[in-house]
Protein backbone atom coordinates (compact mmCIF):
# COMPACT_ATOMS: atom_id res chain seq x y z
CA UNK A 1 0.00 0.00 0.00
CA UNK A 2 2.71 2.51 0.95
CA UNK A 3 4.54 1.49 -2.19
CA UNK A 4 1.50 2.34 -4.30
CA UNK A 5 1.14 5.73 -2.65
CA UNK A 6 4.83 6.50 -3.10
CA UNK A 7 4.63 5.59 -6.79
CA UNK A 8 1.51 7.69 -7.14
CA UNK A 9 3.15 10.72 -5.57
CA UNK A 10 6.18 10.37 -7.79
CA UNK A 11 4.04 10.04 -10.93
CA UNK A 12 1.74 12.82 -9.78
CA UNK A 13 4.55 15.31 -9.25
CA UNK A 14 5.79 14.98 -12.81
CA UNK A 15 2.28 14.88 -14.28
CA UNK A 16 1.35 18.03 -12.41
CA UNK A 17 4.34 19.80 -13.86
CA UNK A 18 3.30 18.81 -17.40
CA UNK A 19 -0.30 19.90 -16.81
CA UNK A 20 0.82 23.24 -15.35
CA UNK A 21 2.42 24.31 -18.62
CA UNK A 22 -0.61 23.28 -20.65
CA UNK A 23 -3.06 25.02 -18.39
CA UNK A 24 -0.96 28.19 -18.26
CA UNK A 25 -0.96 28.47 -22.05
CA UNK A 26 -4.67 27.80 -22.12
CA UNK A 27 -5.47 30.36 -19.47
CA UNK A 28 -3.51 33.11 -21.16
CA UNK A 29 -4.24 32.56 -24.82
CA UNK A 30 -7.27 30.27 -24.89
CA UNK A 31 -5.16 27.94 -27.00
CA UNK A 32 -5.29 24.20 -26.49
CA UNK A 33 -1.68 23.38 -27.12
CA UNK A 34 -1.63 20.06 -28.97
CA UNK A 35 2.12 20.33 -29.28
CA UNK A 36 2.67 20.12 -25.53
CA UNK A 37 3.72 16.46 -25.63
CA UNK A 38 6.10 17.20 -28.47
CA UNK A 39 7.64 20.02 -26.45
CA UNK A 40 8.18 17.54 -23.63
CA UNK A 41 9.92 15.15 -26.02
CA UNK A 42 12.08 17.95 -27.41
CA UNK A 43 13.17 18.84 -23.88
CA UNK A 44 14.03 15.18 -23.33
CA UNK A 45 16.17 15.10 -26.45
CA UNK A 46 18.03 18.27 -25.51
CA UNK A 47 18.95 16.75 -22.17
CA UNK A 48 19.85 13.48 -23.87
CA UNK A 49 22.24 15.32 -26.20
CA UNK A 50 23.91 17.42 -23.55
CA UNK A 51 24.03 14.98 -20.66
CA UNK A 52 24.08 11.67 -22.50
CA UNK A 53 26.20 12.54 -25.54
CA UNK A 54 28.38 15.46 -24.48
CA UNK A 55 28.75 14.19 -20.87
CA UNK A 56 28.13 17.63 -19.35
CA UNK A 57 26.48 17.93 -15.89
CA UNK A 58 22.81 16.99 -15.63
CA UNK A 59 21.83 20.33 -14.10
CA UNK A 60 23.30 22.17 -17.06
CA UNK A 61 21.40 19.88 -19.43
CA UNK A 62 18.15 20.59 -17.60
CA UNK A 63 18.71 24.33 -17.82
CA UNK A 64 19.49 24.01 -21.52
CA UNK A 65 16.26 22.05 -22.05
CA UNK A 66 14.29 24.77 -20.31
CA UNK A 67 15.96 27.61 -22.20
CA UNK A 68 15.62 25.91 -25.59
CA UNK A 69 11.95 25.27 -25.07
CA UNK A 70 11.33 28.76 -23.73
CA UNK A 71 12.81 30.18 -26.92
CA UNK A 72 10.80 27.78 -29.08
CA UNK A 73 7.63 28.69 -27.19
CA UNK A 74 8.24 32.42 -27.45
CA UNK A 75 8.89 32.18 -31.19
CA UNK A 76 5.77 30.07 -31.70
CA UNK A 77 3.64 32.61 -29.88
CA UNK A 78 5.12 35.62 -31.61
CA UNK A 79 5.10 34.40 -35.19
CA UNK A 80 2.36 31.78 -35.33
CA UNK A 81 -0.34 31.97 -32.71
CA UNK A 82 -0.50 35.75 -32.44
CA UNK A 83 -0.93 36.10 -36.20
CA UNK A 84 -3.61 33.47 -36.50
CA UNK A 85 -5.58 34.76 -33.51
CA UNK A 86 -5.59 38.19 -35.09
CA UNK A 87 -6.65 37.08 -38.56
CA UNK A 88 -9.04 34.24 -37.97
CA UNK A 89 -12.78 34.54 -37.66
CA UNK A 90 -13.14 31.66 -35.24
CA UNK A 91 -10.78 31.14 -32.38
CA UNK A 92 -10.84 27.37 -32.88
CA UNK A 93 -8.49 27.94 -35.81
CA UNK A 94 -5.64 27.99 -33.32
CA UNK A 95 -6.30 24.28 -32.76
CA UNK A 96 -5.41 23.53 -36.36
CA UNK A 97 -2.29 25.59 -35.95
CA UNK A 98 -1.40 23.78 -32.73
CA UNK A 99 -1.93 20.39 -34.38
CA UNK A 100 0.21 21.48 -37.33
CA UNK A 101 2.99 22.60 -34.99
CA UNK A 102 2.76 19.24 -33.25
CA UNK A 103 3.32 17.49 -36.60
CA UNK A 104 6.12 19.91 -37.36
CA UNK A 105 7.98 19.28 -34.11
CA UNK A 106 7.46 15.54 -34.57
CA UNK A 107 8.98 15.74 -38.04
CA UNK A 108 11.97 17.77 -36.87
CA UNK A 109 12.71 15.40 -34.01
CA UNK A 110 12.36 12.38 -36.24
CA UNK A 111 14.91 13.87 -38.63
CA UNK A 112 17.33 15.03 -35.96
CA UNK A 113 17.20 12.20 -33.46
CA UNK A 114 15.76 9.22 -35.31
CA UNK A 115 13.08 6.92 -33.99
CA UNK A 116 15.13 4.89 -31.51
CA UNK A 117 14.43 4.85 -27.82
CA UNK A 118 17.12 6.98 -26.17
CA UNK A 119 18.26 6.75 -22.60
CA UNK A 120 20.96 8.33 -20.48
CA UNK A 121 23.04 7.00 -17.59
CA UNK A 122 21.41 7.23 -14.18
CA UNK A 123 21.95 10.48 -12.33
CA UNK A 124 22.25 8.72 -8.98
CA UNK A 125 22.44 4.99 -8.56
CA UNK A 126 21.21 3.02 -5.64
CA UNK A 127 17.83 2.16 -4.21
CA UNK A 128 16.14 3.38 -1.08
CA UNK A 129 14.84 0.38 0.84
CA UNK A 130 12.78 0.44 3.97
CA UNK A 131 10.48 -2.30 5.27
CA UNK A 132 7.46 -0.96 3.39
CA UNK A 133 8.75 1.09 0.46
CA UNK A 134 11.34 0.47 -2.23
CA UNK A 135 12.23 3.46 -4.37
CA UNK A 136 15.30 4.06 -6.53
CA UNK A 137 17.15 7.21 -5.45
CA UNK A 138 16.93 8.82 -8.87
CA UNK A 139 13.15 8.67 -8.75
CA UNK A 140 13.18 10.35 -5.37
CA UNK A 141 15.44 13.10 -6.72
CA UNK A 142 13.23 13.63 -9.76
CA UNK A 143 10.09 13.69 -7.66
CA UNK A 144 11.57 16.18 -5.21
CA UNK A 145 12.87 18.42 -8.00
CA UNK A 146 9.42 18.34 -9.61
CA UNK A 147 7.71 19.31 -6.36
CA UNK A 148 10.24 22.11 -5.81
CA UNK A 149 9.58 23.40 -9.29
CA UNK A 150 5.83 23.38 -8.73
CA UNK A 151 6.35 25.37 -5.53
CA UNK A 152 8.67 27.81 -7.30
CA UNK A 153 6.17 28.24 -10.11
CA UNK A 154 3.33 28.96 -7.71
CA UNK A 155 5.42 31.49 -5.79
CA UNK A 156 6.41 33.11 -9.06
CA UNK A 157 2.79 33.39 -10.20
CA UNK A 158 1.71 34.68 -6.81
CA UNK A 159 4.33 37.27 -5.94
CA UNK A 160 6.37 38.37 -8.95
CA UNK A 161 5.36 41.16 -11.28
CA UNK A 162 5.13 39.02 -14.43
CA UNK A 163 3.19 36.45 -12.41
CA UNK A 164 0.65 39.01 -11.31
CA UNK A 165 0.37 40.34 -14.85
CA UNK A 166 -0.28 36.86 -16.18
CA UNK A 167 -2.92 36.16 -13.57
CA UNK A 168 -4.62 39.40 -14.50
CA UNK A 169 -4.45 38.41 -18.14
CA UNK A 170 -6.03 35.06 -17.42
CA UNK A 171 -8.87 36.67 -15.51
CA UNK A 172 -9.83 39.27 -18.08
CA UNK A 173 -7.72 40.16 -21.06
CA UNK A 174 -9.38 43.46 -21.85
CA UNK A 175 -9.45 44.69 -18.29
CA UNK A 176 -5.78 43.79 -17.89
CA UNK A 177 -4.96 45.76 -21.01
CA UNK A 178 -6.89 48.76 -19.74
CA UNK A 179 -4.90 48.64 -16.52
CA UNK A 180 -1.71 48.96 -18.52
CA UNK A 181 -0.56 45.36 -18.66
CA UNK A 182 1.44 44.78 -21.82
CA UNK A 183 -0.75 41.99 -23.10
CA UNK A 184 1.40 40.89 -26.01
CA UNK A 185 4.59 40.74 -24.02
CA UNK A 186 3.06 38.72 -21.19
CA UNK A 187 1.32 36.35 -23.59
CA UNK A 188 4.71 35.62 -25.03
CA UNK A 189 6.31 35.20 -21.61
CA UNK A 190 3.47 32.90 -20.56
CA UNK A 191 3.76 30.73 -23.63
CA UNK A 192 7.52 30.54 -23.16
CA UNK A 193 7.05 29.60 -19.50
CA UNK A 194 4.55 26.87 -20.34
CA UNK A 195 6.87 25.46 -22.99
CA UNK A 196 9.78 25.66 -20.59
CA UNK A 197 7.94 23.59 -17.98
CA UNK A 198 7.24 20.91 -20.58
CA UNK A 199 10.90 20.94 -21.60
CA UNK A 200 12.18 20.63 -18.05
CA UNK A 201 9.91 17.68 -17.26
CA UNK A 202 11.08 16.04 -20.45
CA UNK A 203 14.66 16.57 -19.36
CA UNK A 204 13.99 15.24 -15.86
CA UNK A 205 12.26 12.11 -17.06
CA UNK A 206 14.76 11.20 -19.73
CA UNK A 207 17.01 10.07 -16.89
CA UNK A 208 14.41 7.51 -15.78
CA UNK A 209 12.18 6.42 -18.65
CA UNK A 210 14.27 7.58 -21.61
CA UNK A 211 12.68 9.25 -24.56
CA UNK A 212 11.64 8.46 -28.12
CA UNK A 213 10.14 10.63 -30.80
CA UNK A 214 6.77 8.85 -30.79
CA UNK A 215 5.59 9.52 -27.23
CA UNK A 216 4.57 13.15 -27.75
CA UNK A 217 0.96 12.36 -28.66
CA UNK A 218 0.21 10.06 -25.69
CA UNK A 219 1.80 12.59 -23.32
CA UNK A 220 -0.47 15.30 -24.72
CA UNK A 221 -3.50 13.09 -24.12
CA UNK A 222 -2.47 12.48 -20.52
CA UNK A 223 -1.99 16.21 -20.04
CA UNK A 224 -5.48 16.84 -21.42
CA UNK A 225 -6.86 14.29 -18.97
CA UNK A 226 -5.27 16.04 -15.99
CA UNK A 227 -6.48 19.42 -17.13
CA UNK A 228 -10.00 18.05 -17.53
CA UNK A 229 -9.97 16.55 -14.07
CA UNK A 230 -8.76 19.74 -12.43
CA UNK A 231 -10.45 22.29 -14.66
CA UNK A 232 -8.88 24.09 -17.60
CA UNK A 233 -6.96 27.28 -17.03
CA UNK A 234 -6.66 26.96 -13.25
CA UNK A 235 -3.23 26.46 -11.70
CA UNK A 236 -4.52 24.63 -8.64
CA UNK A 237 -6.65 22.42 -10.86
CA UNK A 238 -3.71 21.34 -12.94
CA UNK A 239 -1.74 20.35 -9.85
CA UNK A 240 -4.70 18.48 -8.38
CA UNK A 241 -5.38 16.80 -11.72
CA UNK A 242 -1.78 15.71 -12.04
CA UNK A 243 -1.65 14.13 -8.60
CA UNK A 244 -5.06 12.50 -9.00
CA UNK A 245 -4.12 10.94 -12.32
CA UNK A 246 -0.78 9.81 -10.98
CA UNK A 247 -2.45 8.20 -7.97
CA UNK A 248 -5.16 6.55 -10.07
CA UNK A 249 -2.58 5.15 -12.46
CA UNK A 250 -0.52 3.80 -9.60
CA UNK A 251 -3.50 2.25 -7.82
CA UNK A 252 -4.94 0.92 -11.09
CA UNK A 253 -1.71 -0.74 -12.10
CA UNK A 254 -1.50 -2.40 -8.71
CA UNK A 255 -5.08 -3.61 -8.35
CA UNK A 256 -6.28 -4.26 -11.92
CA UNK A 257 -3.23 -6.18 -12.99
CA UNK A 258 -4.94 -9.55 -13.23
CA UNK A 259 -7.62 -8.23 -15.59
CA UNK A 260 -5.13 -7.17 -18.23
CA UNK A 261 -4.25 -3.76 -19.52
CA UNK A 262 -7.44 -1.92 -18.63
CA UNK A 263 -6.25 0.73 -16.17
CA UNK A 264 -6.73 3.54 -18.62
CA UNK A 265 -10.09 2.22 -19.78
CA UNK A 266 -11.30 2.40 -16.18
CA UNK A 267 -9.82 5.88 -15.74
CA UNK A 268 -11.59 7.09 -18.89
CA UNK A 269 -14.89 5.62 -17.79
CA UNK A 270 -14.57 7.27 -14.36
CA UNK A 271 -13.69 10.54 -16.05
CA UNK A 272 -16.84 10.42 -18.21
CA UNK A 273 -19.00 9.89 -15.14
CA UNK A 274 -17.14 12.61 -13.26
CA UNK A 275 -17.51 15.09 -16.11
CA UNK A 276 -21.22 14.46 -16.42
CA UNK A 277 -21.54 15.53 -12.78
CA UNK A 278 -18.98 18.33 -12.85
CA UNK A 279 -18.57 19.46 -16.46
CA UNK A 280 -15.85 21.96 -15.65
CA UNK A 281 -13.62 19.77 -13.58
CA UNK A 282 -12.78 20.27 -9.92
CA UNK A 283 -11.94 23.96 -10.01
CA UNK A 284 -12.67 25.10 -13.55
CA UNK A 285 -14.64 28.17 -14.37
CA UNK A 286 -17.89 27.62 -16.26
CA UNK A 287 -16.88 29.03 -19.59
CA UNK A 288 -16.09 27.44 -22.94
Amino acid at each position, binding site marked *: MEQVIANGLYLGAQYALIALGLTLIFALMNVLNFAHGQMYVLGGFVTYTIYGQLKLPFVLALICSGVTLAIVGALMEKFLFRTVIRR*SKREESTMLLA*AATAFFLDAIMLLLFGEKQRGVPKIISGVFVSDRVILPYDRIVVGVVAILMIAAFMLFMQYSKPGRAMRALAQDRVAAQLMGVKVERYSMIGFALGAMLAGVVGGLLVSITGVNSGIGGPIS*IKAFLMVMIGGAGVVGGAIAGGFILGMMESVGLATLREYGDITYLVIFAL*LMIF*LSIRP*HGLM*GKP*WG
Partner: protein
Amino acid sequence: MRKSRTATLRIVSAILFLLALLVAVPLLISATGRSDLYYTLTSVALLSIISAGVWITFYIGRINIGQGAYALMGGYVSAILVMNYGVSFWLTLPLAGLFCAAASVLIGLPILRLRGVYFAMVTLVLTEVARLLALALPITNGASGIVSIPLPTGISLFGLTLVPGFATVANPRLAFYIVAVLLMALCFLGLYRLAHSRIGQLCQSLQQNEELASSIGVNIAYLRVIAYALSSFLGGVGGAMFASISQSIYPSSFTVADSVNFMLNCFLGGLGYVLGPMLGTFVLYFGWDLLFQTGEFQLLIFSTLLIVLMLVLPNGLLSLALPRKRSL
Protein backbone atom coordinates in the same frame (compact mmCIF):
# COMPACT_ATOMS: atom_id res chain seq x y z
CA MET B 1 -36.42 35.12 -60.47
CA ARG B 2 -32.73 35.65 -59.83
CA LYS B 3 -32.80 33.21 -56.96
CA SER B 4 -34.31 30.40 -59.00
CA ARG B 5 -31.65 30.92 -61.67
CA THR B 6 -28.79 30.53 -59.22
CA ALA B 7 -30.57 27.50 -57.83
CA THR B 8 -30.75 25.89 -61.28
CA LEU B 9 -27.14 26.78 -61.84
CA ARG B 10 -26.21 25.03 -58.61
CA ILE B 11 -28.14 21.89 -59.48
CA VAL B 12 -26.62 21.77 -62.97
CA SER B 13 -23.09 22.24 -61.67
CA ALA B 14 -23.63 19.60 -59.00
CA ILE B 15 -24.86 17.10 -61.63
CA LEU B 16 -21.94 17.95 -63.89
CA PHE B 17 -19.52 17.45 -61.01
CA LEU B 18 -21.03 14.07 -60.21
CA LEU B 19 -20.93 13.01 -63.86
CA ALA B 20 -17.32 14.07 -64.07
CA LEU B 21 -16.50 11.92 -61.04
CA LEU B 22 -18.46 8.89 -62.27
CA VAL B 23 -17.61 8.97 -65.99
CA ALA B 24 -14.67 11.22 -66.77
CA VAL B 25 -12.43 10.09 -63.89
CA PRO B 26 -12.71 6.34 -64.67
CA LEU B 27 -12.09 7.08 -68.36
CA LEU B 28 -9.04 9.14 -67.54
CA ILE B 29 -7.73 6.51 -65.18
CA SER B 30 -8.15 3.71 -67.71
CA ALA B 31 -6.49 5.92 -70.35
CA THR B 32 -3.46 6.60 -68.19
CA GLY B 33 -3.41 3.18 -66.57
CA ARG B 34 -3.04 4.61 -63.02
CA SER B 35 -5.56 2.25 -61.47
CA ASP B 36 -3.98 2.82 -58.04
CA LEU B 37 -5.67 6.20 -58.12
CA TYR B 38 -9.00 4.44 -57.58
CA TYR B 39 -7.99 3.54 -54.07
CA THR B 40 -6.80 7.08 -53.34
CA LEU B 41 -9.97 8.68 -54.67
CA THR B 42 -12.18 6.17 -52.88
CA SER B 43 -10.38 6.98 -49.65
CA VAL B 44 -10.86 10.69 -50.25
CA ALA B 45 -14.58 10.19 -50.85
CA LEU B 46 -15.01 8.12 -47.68
CA LEU B 47 -12.83 10.34 -45.52
CA SER B 48 -14.80 13.34 -46.67
CA ILE B 49 -18.00 11.60 -45.54
CA ILE B 50 -16.47 11.03 -42.10
CA SER B 51 -15.20 14.62 -42.03
CA ALA B 52 -18.64 15.86 -43.00
CA GLY B 53 -19.80 14.38 -39.71
CA VAL B 54 -17.23 16.45 -37.86
CA TRP B 55 -18.42 19.47 -39.82
CA ILE B 56 -21.94 18.99 -38.43
CA THR B 57 -20.63 19.20 -34.88
CA PHE B 58 -18.71 22.31 -35.83
CA TYR B 59 -21.99 23.66 -37.12
CA ILE B 60 -23.46 23.53 -33.62
CA GLY B 61 -20.31 25.14 -32.28
CA ARG B 62 -18.52 22.08 -30.88
CA ILE B 63 -15.01 20.93 -31.73
CA ASN B 64 -15.20 17.21 -32.31
CA ILE B 65 -11.95 15.25 -32.19
CA GLY B 66 -13.69 11.96 -31.50
CA GLN B 67 -14.86 10.98 -34.94
CA GLY B 68 -12.24 8.25 -35.14
CA ALA B 69 -14.07 6.45 -32.32
CA TYR B 70 -17.27 6.20 -34.35
CA ALA B 71 -15.45 5.28 -37.55
CA LEU B 72 -13.77 2.46 -35.65
CA MET B 73 -17.06 1.42 -34.08
CA GLY B 74 -18.82 1.41 -37.45
CA GLY B 75 -16.06 -0.65 -38.99
CA TYR B 76 -16.26 -3.23 -36.20
CA VAL B 77 -20.07 -3.41 -36.24
CA SER B 78 -20.10 -4.05 -39.98
CA ALA B 79 -17.23 -6.53 -39.81
CA ILE B 80 -18.74 -8.50 -36.91
CA LEU B 81 -22.18 -8.62 -38.52
CA VAL B 82 -20.74 -9.85 -41.82
CA MET B 83 -18.30 -12.36 -40.30
CA ASN B 84 -20.22 -13.76 -37.35
CA TYR B 85 -23.84 -13.45 -38.44
CA GLY B 86 -23.57 -13.60 -42.23
CA VAL B 87 -25.55 -10.39 -42.74
CA SER B 88 -25.24 -8.84 -46.20
CA PHE B 89 -22.75 -5.98 -46.26
CA TRP B 90 -25.27 -3.58 -47.73
CA LEU B 91 -27.52 -4.10 -44.76
CA THR B 92 -24.69 -3.64 -42.29
CA LEU B 93 -23.84 -0.24 -43.76
CA PRO B 94 -26.93 1.55 -42.40
CA LEU B 95 -26.89 -0.71 -39.33
CA ALA B 96 -23.35 0.38 -38.49
CA GLY B 97 -24.44 3.99 -38.89
CA LEU B 98 -27.48 3.50 -36.68
CA PHE B 99 -25.47 1.66 -34.03
CA CYS B 100 -23.02 4.56 -33.89
CA ALA B 101 -25.84 7.08 -33.77
CA ALA B 102 -27.44 5.22 -30.85
CA ALA B 103 -24.13 5.00 -29.04
CA SER B 104 -23.50 8.67 -29.64
CA VAL B 105 -26.85 9.60 -28.10
CA LEU B 106 -25.86 7.72 -24.94
CA ILE B 107 -22.39 9.26 -24.85
CA GLY B 108 -23.56 12.63 -26.09
CA LEU B 109 -26.20 13.22 -23.43
CA PRO B 110 -23.63 13.85 -20.70
CA ILE B 111 -20.72 15.19 -22.72
CA LEU B 112 -22.65 17.58 -24.96
CA ARG B 113 -23.16 19.74 -21.90
CA LEU B 114 -19.47 20.55 -22.14
CA ARG B 115 -18.26 23.32 -24.37
CA GLY B 116 -15.21 24.61 -26.12
CA VAL B 117 -11.96 22.92 -25.20
CA TYR B 118 -13.63 20.70 -22.63
CA PHE B 119 -15.71 19.04 -25.33
CA ALA B 120 -12.70 18.89 -27.62
CA MET B 121 -10.61 17.16 -24.95
CA VAL B 122 -13.32 14.67 -23.99
CA THR B 123 -13.87 13.67 -27.59
CA LEU B 124 -10.15 13.28 -28.07
CA VAL B 125 -10.12 10.93 -25.11
CA LEU B 126 -13.10 9.12 -26.62
CA THR B 127 -10.99 8.05 -29.58
CA GLU B 128 -8.49 6.55 -27.20
CA VAL B 129 -11.31 4.81 -25.30
CA ALA B 130 -12.56 3.24 -28.52
CA ARG B 131 -9.11 1.90 -29.30
CA LEU B 132 -8.65 0.48 -25.79
CA LEU B 133 -12.13 -1.07 -25.90
CA ALA B 134 -11.39 -2.71 -29.24
CA LEU B 135 -8.26 -4.15 -27.65
CA ALA B 136 -10.01 -5.36 -24.52
CA LEU B 137 -13.37 -6.73 -25.71
CA PRO B 138 -13.46 -10.43 -26.62
CA ILE B 139 -15.70 -9.98 -29.67
CA THR B 140 -13.29 -7.65 -31.46
CA ASN B 141 -10.49 -10.20 -31.33
CA GLY B 142 -7.96 -7.91 -29.67
CA ALA B 143 -4.90 -6.53 -31.37
CA SER B 144 -4.98 -9.01 -34.23
CA GLY B 145 -8.25 -7.50 -35.41
CA ILE B 146 -10.75 -8.99 -37.83
CA VAL B 147 -9.22 -9.95 -41.14
CA SER B 148 -10.27 -11.41 -44.50
CA ILE B 149 -13.74 -9.94 -44.41
CA PRO B 150 -15.49 -11.11 -47.61
CA LEU B 151 -16.20 -8.56 -50.34
CA PRO B 152 -19.77 -7.24 -50.49
CA THR B 153 -22.24 -9.67 -52.03
CA GLY B 154 -24.76 -8.69 -54.70
CA ILE B 155 -28.27 -7.39 -54.15
CA SER B 156 -31.07 -8.86 -56.21
CA LEU B 157 -34.74 -8.05 -56.03
CA PHE B 158 -37.28 -10.50 -57.53
CA GLY B 159 -34.50 -12.25 -59.42
CA LEU B 160 -33.26 -9.00 -60.88
CA THR B 161 -29.63 -8.21 -60.05
CA LEU B 162 -29.44 -4.64 -58.82
CA VAL B 163 -25.86 -4.68 -57.61
CA PRO B 164 -23.50 -7.49 -58.68
CA GLY B 165 -21.44 -9.20 -56.01
CA PHE B 166 -18.10 -7.44 -55.72
CA ALA B 167 -16.21 -10.71 -55.83
CA THR B 168 -17.60 -11.40 -59.32
CA VAL B 169 -17.06 -8.02 -60.97
CA ALA B 170 -13.97 -7.55 -63.10
CA ASN B 171 -12.68 -4.51 -61.23
CA PRO B 172 -13.70 -4.34 -57.57
CA ARG B 173 -11.73 -1.12 -57.17
CA LEU B 174 -13.91 0.65 -59.71
CA ALA B 175 -17.03 -0.75 -58.02
CA PHE B 176 -15.89 0.54 -54.62
CA TYR B 177 -15.03 3.87 -56.19
CA ILE B 178 -18.52 4.27 -57.65
CA VAL B 179 -20.20 3.28 -54.40
CA ALA B 180 -18.03 5.70 -52.44
CA VAL B 181 -18.70 8.59 -54.82
CA LEU B 182 -22.45 7.93 -54.73
CA LEU B 183 -22.40 7.80 -50.94
CA MET B 184 -20.42 11.02 -50.83
CA ALA B 185 -22.86 12.76 -53.18
CA LEU B 186 -25.76 11.57 -51.06
CA CYS B 187 -24.06 12.72 -47.89
CA PHE B 188 -23.24 16.21 -49.11
CA LEU B 189 -26.67 16.61 -50.68
CA GLY B 190 -28.16 15.83 -47.29
CA LEU B 191 -25.69 18.14 -45.60
CA TYR B 192 -26.54 21.00 -47.94
CA ARG B 193 -30.23 20.42 -47.38
CA LEU B 194 -29.69 20.28 -43.61
CA ALA B 195 -27.64 23.47 -43.53
CA HIS B 196 -30.33 25.36 -45.44
CA SER B 197 -33.27 23.97 -43.53
CA ARG B 198 -34.95 25.29 -40.42
CA ILE B 199 -32.93 22.90 -38.29
CA GLY B 200 -29.77 24.20 -39.94
CA GLN B 201 -30.67 27.75 -38.98
CA LEU B 202 -31.39 26.65 -35.43
CA CYS B 203 -28.04 24.86 -35.30
CA GLN B 204 -26.38 28.08 -36.30
CA SER B 205 -28.07 29.86 -33.47
CA LEU B 206 -26.47 27.28 -31.15
CA GLN B 207 -23.10 28.06 -32.66
CA GLN B 208 -23.50 31.72 -31.87
CA ASN B 209 -25.08 31.74 -28.45
CA GLU B 210 -26.68 28.78 -26.76
CA GLU B 211 -28.23 30.67 -23.85
CA LEU B 212 -29.86 33.19 -26.14
CA ALA B 213 -31.18 30.45 -28.42
CA SER B 214 -32.55 28.58 -25.46
CA SER B 215 -34.18 31.69 -24.03
CA ILE B 216 -36.22 32.21 -27.20
CA GLY B 217 -37.50 28.67 -27.11
CA VAL B 218 -35.01 26.55 -29.05
CA ASN B 219 -34.72 23.09 -27.55
CA ILE B 220 -30.94 23.12 -27.43
CA ALA B 221 -30.43 19.82 -25.63
CA TYR B 222 -32.49 17.97 -28.26
CA LEU B 223 -30.88 19.74 -31.21
CA ARG B 224 -27.32 19.10 -30.19
CA VAL B 225 -27.95 15.43 -29.52
CA ILE B 226 -29.58 15.12 -32.96
CA ALA B 227 -26.65 16.88 -34.61
CA TYR B 228 -24.14 14.71 -32.76
CA ALA B 229 -26.05 11.54 -33.68
CA LEU B 230 -26.07 12.56 -37.36
CA SER B 231 -22.39 13.24 -37.15
CA SER B 232 -21.67 9.83 -35.65
CA PHE B 233 -23.95 8.15 -38.20
CA LEU B 234 -21.75 9.49 -41.00
CA GLY B 235 -18.64 8.40 -39.10
CA GLY B 236 -20.03 4.88 -38.70
CA VAL B 237 -21.00 4.53 -42.35
CA GLY B 238 -17.60 5.75 -43.48
CA GLY B 239 -15.81 3.40 -41.11
CA ALA B 240 -17.91 0.41 -42.23
CA MET B 241 -17.10 1.14 -45.87
CA PHE B 242 -13.41 1.37 -45.03
CA ALA B 243 -13.44 -1.97 -43.24
CA SER B 244 -15.03 -3.54 -46.30
CA ILE B 245 -12.56 -2.04 -48.77
CA SER B 246 -9.46 -3.00 -46.84
CA GLN B 247 -11.21 -6.28 -45.87
CA SER B 248 -9.86 -5.89 -42.37
CA ILE B 249 -10.23 -3.82 -39.24
CA TYR B 250 -7.80 -3.38 -36.36
CA PRO B 251 -7.91 -1.32 -33.16
CA SER B 252 -5.32 0.91 -34.81
CA SER B 253 -7.38 1.44 -37.98
CA PHE B 254 -8.63 4.77 -36.68
CA THR B 255 -6.48 6.44 -34.05
CA VAL B 256 -6.18 9.84 -32.44
CA ALA B 257 -4.16 11.02 -35.42
CA ASP B 258 -7.08 10.17 -37.72
CA SER B 259 -9.52 11.99 -35.48
CA VAL B 260 -7.29 15.04 -35.59
CA ASN B 261 -7.05 14.73 -39.36
CA PHE B 262 -10.83 14.68 -39.74
CA MET B 263 -10.94 17.91 -37.81
CA LEU B 264 -8.12 19.37 -39.90
CA ASN B 265 -10.00 18.51 -43.10
CA CYS B 266 -12.91 20.64 -41.96
CA PHE B 267 -10.69 23.50 -40.86
CA LEU B 268 -8.69 23.46 -44.06
CA GLY B 269 -11.73 23.53 -46.32
CA GLY B 270 -13.39 26.20 -44.25
CA LEU B 271 -15.90 25.77 -41.46
CA GLY B 272 -18.40 28.14 -43.02
CA TYR B 273 -18.92 26.14 -46.19
CA VAL B 274 -20.79 22.90 -46.78
CA LEU B 275 -18.25 21.73 -49.33
CA GLY B 276 -15.39 22.60 -47.00
CA PRO B 277 -14.81 19.06 -45.67
CA MET B 278 -14.76 17.62 -49.20
CA LEU B 279 -12.19 20.09 -50.48
CA GLY B 280 -10.15 19.91 -47.29
CA THR B 281 -9.97 16.11 -47.41
CA PHE B 282 -9.01 16.15 -51.07
CA VAL B 283 -6.22 18.68 -50.58
CA LEU B 284 -4.91 17.11 -47.39
CA TYR B 285 -4.95 13.52 -48.66
CA PHE B 286 -3.50 14.30 -52.08
CA GLY B 287 -0.97 16.68 -50.61
CA TRP B 288 0.21 13.93 -48.28
CA ASP B 289 0.34 11.42 -51.13
CA LEU B 290 2.22 13.73 -53.48
CA LEU B 291 4.79 14.45 -50.82
CA PHE B 292 5.50 10.73 -50.49
CA GLN B 293 8.36 11.07 -52.96
CA THR B 294 10.19 13.43 -50.64
CA GLY B 295 10.77 10.46 -48.32
CA GLU B 296 11.82 11.35 -44.81
CA PHE B 297 11.00 15.02 -45.34
CA GLN B 298 7.35 14.22 -46.05
CA LEU B 299 6.02 15.14 -42.61
CA LEU B 300 8.25 18.19 -42.34
CA ILE B 301 7.12 19.70 -45.66
CA PHE B 302 3.51 18.73 -45.03
CA SER B 303 3.35 20.35 -41.61
CA THR B 304 5.19 23.45 -42.81
CA LEU B 305 2.65 23.83 -45.61
CA LEU B 306 -0.18 23.42 -43.09
CA ILE B 307 1.28 26.13 -40.86
CA VAL B 308 1.78 28.49 -43.80
CA LEU B 309 -1.75 27.82 -45.05
CA MET B 310 -3.07 28.58 -41.61
CA LEU B 311 -1.15 31.85 -41.45
CA VAL B 312 -2.28 32.98 -44.89
CA LEU B 313 -5.83 31.62 -44.96
CA PRO B 314 -6.97 31.13 -41.37
CA ASN B 315 -10.60 30.84 -42.44
CA GLY B 316 -10.12 27.91 -44.78
CA LEU B 317 -9.39 27.38 -48.45
CA LEU B 318 -12.91 28.21 -49.60
CA SER B 319 -12.64 31.68 -48.09
CA LEU B 320 -10.38 32.38 -51.05
CA ALA B 321 -12.99 31.53 -53.67
CA LEU B 322 -16.00 32.97 -51.88
CA PRO B 323 -14.58 35.93 -50.02
CA ARG B 324 -17.58 38.20 -49.89
CA LYS B 325 -20.18 35.61 -49.13
CA ARG B 326 -21.27 35.68 -45.53
CA SER B 327 -20.34 32.48 -43.83
CA LEU B 328 -23.19 30.11 -44.31
